[in-house]
């Protein structure tokens, strides 16, 4: 058996029974990285030495803790390079932070470290999480393990590909408009964006503060529940984190789904949705019905405006969030500038890629005097309407079901010169961020050998319902999606 293929709960069982060690597990994952990452390119940084040291420490701690060992003790994890890891380069896949080593850990890292998980590396992404393919990484494009000519999705493409290719047992990503769920769908793994406020954003390099949320990539739904339990909870360092109790999801997800109601929005499955994707998702919906889930027609009338709303609010917040990269204190700094303004413009001109610049410009414009009301303020009002749509639908149903992505993984280069078609990659995921709702994506079939993602979006702080639906579907379908990567 190749240890790198294990899920978190499988590894837990073996570790608990003393049939393997964290050192063995970590070495297997490092060997897998060594073997395939030249092809997949999931990692910006592999932390070999640190991983080995942490694995040894985890084994020593397991000897002490015995049955009380925390669930993630000794489990190798990959972390999106937008989450601060103390002493380990955190680049956001940007020239701007190419050599930036943070002096502190993000709250999620503190939580993982407290459990004793093993950091194997930092994963590639679209620069500052802006993109849907990792093609906007300043360093390289990550390949989809199912077809290395195709993108893994984005922006958390590296984290999705690492888990799909068994280069990590689980990983963390961030989701601002679909950046966890869309790559999870395209790579055939489980990805969840928790409710806004569930996971502390402290130490997550901000893209769009009111939309960003950290979440897990895992090989199955059980792992999703396990990792979620580890990273959620209110944080005094994040004023937007919510004072909600963290449920025992691994147990809660097993509850029968009979009688739950899911809604299929009338406005979905329109033009642009791949027929094979639609077919697969509709089959999955039928399977849910067979499990006793009721399926309802619902309406989300402002769906058409979600994309425009998102592409005002996210860039507006980003334009302020990225203002700190000025070359004064850290990060790239232009050499030999003659004046402060030249230093600024050259530092930022050299340090940022084209997509980041595009969004900073759009966001700056949307907030400018004379345009604020027409753009930013209007977008905030539409945001309220979109949230109200969901609220209304949730009076009838417990979750919304849809494809995660309108298409399967697209070819590298296919959309890179067409921002609008790239933005459309996130059509089914954006509304969840705009409304702050939790969403999960899990594989529900293949089209031409490429994974298709099924998405459930739920009420605020009702991740339990999403995990129940996803777990029930996963159990019923009985398929484990593994790419035939050499």
């Amino acid at each position: 058996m190749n240890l790198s293929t294990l899920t978190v709960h499988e590894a837990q069982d073996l570790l608990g029974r003393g049939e393997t060690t964290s050192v063995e597990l970590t070495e297997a994952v490092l060997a897998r990285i060594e073997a395939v990452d030249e092809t997949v390119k999931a990692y910006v940084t592999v932390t070999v030495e640190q991983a080995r040291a942490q694995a040894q420490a985890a084994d020593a701690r397991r000897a002490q803790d015995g049955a009380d060992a925390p669930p993630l003790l000794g489990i190798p994890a990959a972390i999106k390079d937008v989450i601060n890891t103390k002493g380990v380069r955190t680049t956001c896949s940007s020239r701007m932070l190419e050599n930036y080593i943070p002096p502190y850990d993000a709250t999620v890292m503190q939580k993982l470290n407290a459990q004793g998980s093993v950091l194997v590396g930092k994963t590639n992404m679209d620069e500052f999480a802006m993109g849907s393919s990792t093609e906007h990484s300043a360093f390289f494009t990550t390949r989809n393990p199912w077809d290395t000519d195709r993108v893994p999705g984005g922006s958390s493409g590296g984290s999705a590909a690492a888990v799909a290719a068994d280069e990590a047992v689980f990983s963390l990503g961030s989701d601002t408009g679909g950046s966890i769920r869309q790559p999870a769908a395209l790579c055939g793994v489980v990805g969840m964006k928790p409710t806004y406020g569930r996971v502390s954003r402290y130490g997550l390099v901000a893209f769009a503060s009111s939309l960003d949320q950290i979440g897990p990539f895992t090989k199955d739904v059980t792992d999703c529940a396990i990792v979620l339990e580890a990273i959620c909870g209110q944080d005094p360092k994040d004023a937007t984190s919510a004072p909600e109790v963290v449920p025992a999801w691994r147990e809660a997800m097993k509850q029968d789904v009979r009688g739950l109601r899911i809604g299929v929005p009338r406005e979905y499955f329109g033009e642009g949705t791949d027929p094979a994707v639609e077919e697969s998702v509709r089959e999955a919906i039928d399977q849910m019905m067979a499990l006793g889930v009721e399926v309802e027609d619902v309406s989300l009338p402002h769906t058409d405006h979600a994309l425009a709303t998102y592409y005002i609010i996210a860039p507006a917040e980003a334009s302020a969030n990225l203002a700190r990269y000025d070359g004064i204190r850290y990060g790239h700094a232009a050499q030999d500038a003659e004046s402060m303004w030249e230093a600024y413009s050259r530092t930022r001109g050299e340090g940022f890629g084209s997509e980041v610049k595009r969004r900073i410009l759009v966001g700056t414009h949307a907030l400018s005097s004379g345009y604020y009301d027409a753009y930013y303020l209007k977008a905030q009002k539409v945001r309220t309407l979109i949230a109200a749509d969901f609220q209304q639908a949730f009076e009838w149903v417990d979750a919304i079901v849809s494809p995660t992505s309108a298409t399967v993984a697209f070819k590298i280069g296919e959309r890179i010169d067409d921002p609008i078609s790239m933005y459309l990659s996130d059509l089914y995921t954006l509304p969840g961020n705009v409304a702050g709702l939790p969403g999960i994506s899990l594989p529900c079939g293949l089209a031409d050998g490429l994974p298709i993602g099924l998405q459930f979006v739920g009420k605020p702080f009702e991740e339990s319902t999403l995990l129940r639906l996803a777990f029930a579907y996963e159990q019923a379908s009985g398929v484990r999606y593994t790419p035939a990567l050499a």
Partner: protein
Amino acid sequence: MATAVTEKYRTVIGLEFHVQLLTESKMFCACSAQYAANPPNTVVCPVCLGLPGALPVINEKVIECIVMTGMALNSQIPEFAKFDRKNYPYPDLPKGYQISQFDLPFCIEGHLTLDEEDGGRTIGITRVHQEEDTAKSTHVTAASGERYSLVDFNRSGVPLMEVVTEPDIASPEEAAAFGRKLRQIVRYLGISTGNMEDGAMRCDANISVWPADAPLGDIKVEVKNMNSFRAVERALYFEQERQTRILESGNDTRVTETRGWVETSGETVSQRTKEEAHDYRYFPEPDLPPLQLSREWIEGVREKLPELPAAKKERFMAEFDLSDYDASLLTQSRDLADYFEAASAGAKNAKAVANWMSRNLLQRLNESGSEIGDCKISPDALAEMILMIESGAISNRMAQEVFDQMFDTGKSAKVIVKEQGLAQISDEDELAGIVATVIAENPAAVQDFNQGKKRAIGFLVGQVMKATRGKANPGIVNQKLQEALRQD
């Protein structure tokens, strides 16, 4: 100042104050706000350095300070407030934006009435809101001629309160009086040192001058860089004169601009015109949820409000029967007022305490350039001295000498009197003996007295005083002399 020219025009002034708050920690992180004594860039953390991923958390104490100030300035405290980002690039602004408040500040629609001697007008307060301080830039030219700047982030994120007035102020003197009054209030509240000199309180002024009989125009000049109230007054005078001269020329070439006060040359210099002004692109701070201040919380803050200068002055006049002048003087600062009340409680004679404080204590403090807090005479010690005067243990004249020694050495009146044998002689038998001796030794004076030269008694009193080195109780000496001379 009412010259012909100034009568033709009216001056419109609005002020903005930035006040550093005396909280333990900074506005949005746990770093100490008392950074001044530390080496550069040592009182910093990911939050106040603007590191990637760091998030702000509100310091509730700051909100309390601001709401308290709003209450002292008779403001409305809305239940709903929010924070906004004010965007502009500068090396001393680590996030590239400042967390401030735009359209929903903590306090709105207040007012402050100036003292009678400052004209007694009521000035509207537009708002009081929260801001965070920037880092400190130092611009250096090296011996080689190379020019560079250094940034110290210790000050970054220190809580600031901004107080904005309505354009209700009509003269430079009134502007300075308002500033002093505001400083007195923040000091009373104990929320700031209010020191202009070290930047703990900063003032920007908007000023424009218009023909008295025409409607106001929409040009205004913002004046910055004044680091004392004296400078505020001088800068506004300069600007008033400058604008008046332009109007007098008949060709109004003024533009809306920012001008800096140059203390050394005593003039304002243009720094930035409207075309170069920033578009701050304010928008709601997504990292901080809007704040709902409950009525209970607001009332809780109100209960913590100390007695404010105006109320204290009224009470001193009513309770202690002080003059308007003395009451103003003794309520200048909370420390001074507390000192007065403590000493009065000990001496049971507020009038006497007020006299000693206004005539002696404040004068000595002024001369030595020190504050009441530095005074070596405790309120109890002053009370003791006053009781000694009343009991006749020392004379008023001796008390002057004793007080000066108390002020210099911090010794109590009793100790000084004992050490130097200064106690007043009030023993009647002892004084009768000395009087007898003086009468015996000065027959000429006694004869003069007996022949009707009543003034001769003054000479005899002087002789008694001389014999006792001034320690004799003059009342008793007089009485004893009268008795002795009548017997003759």
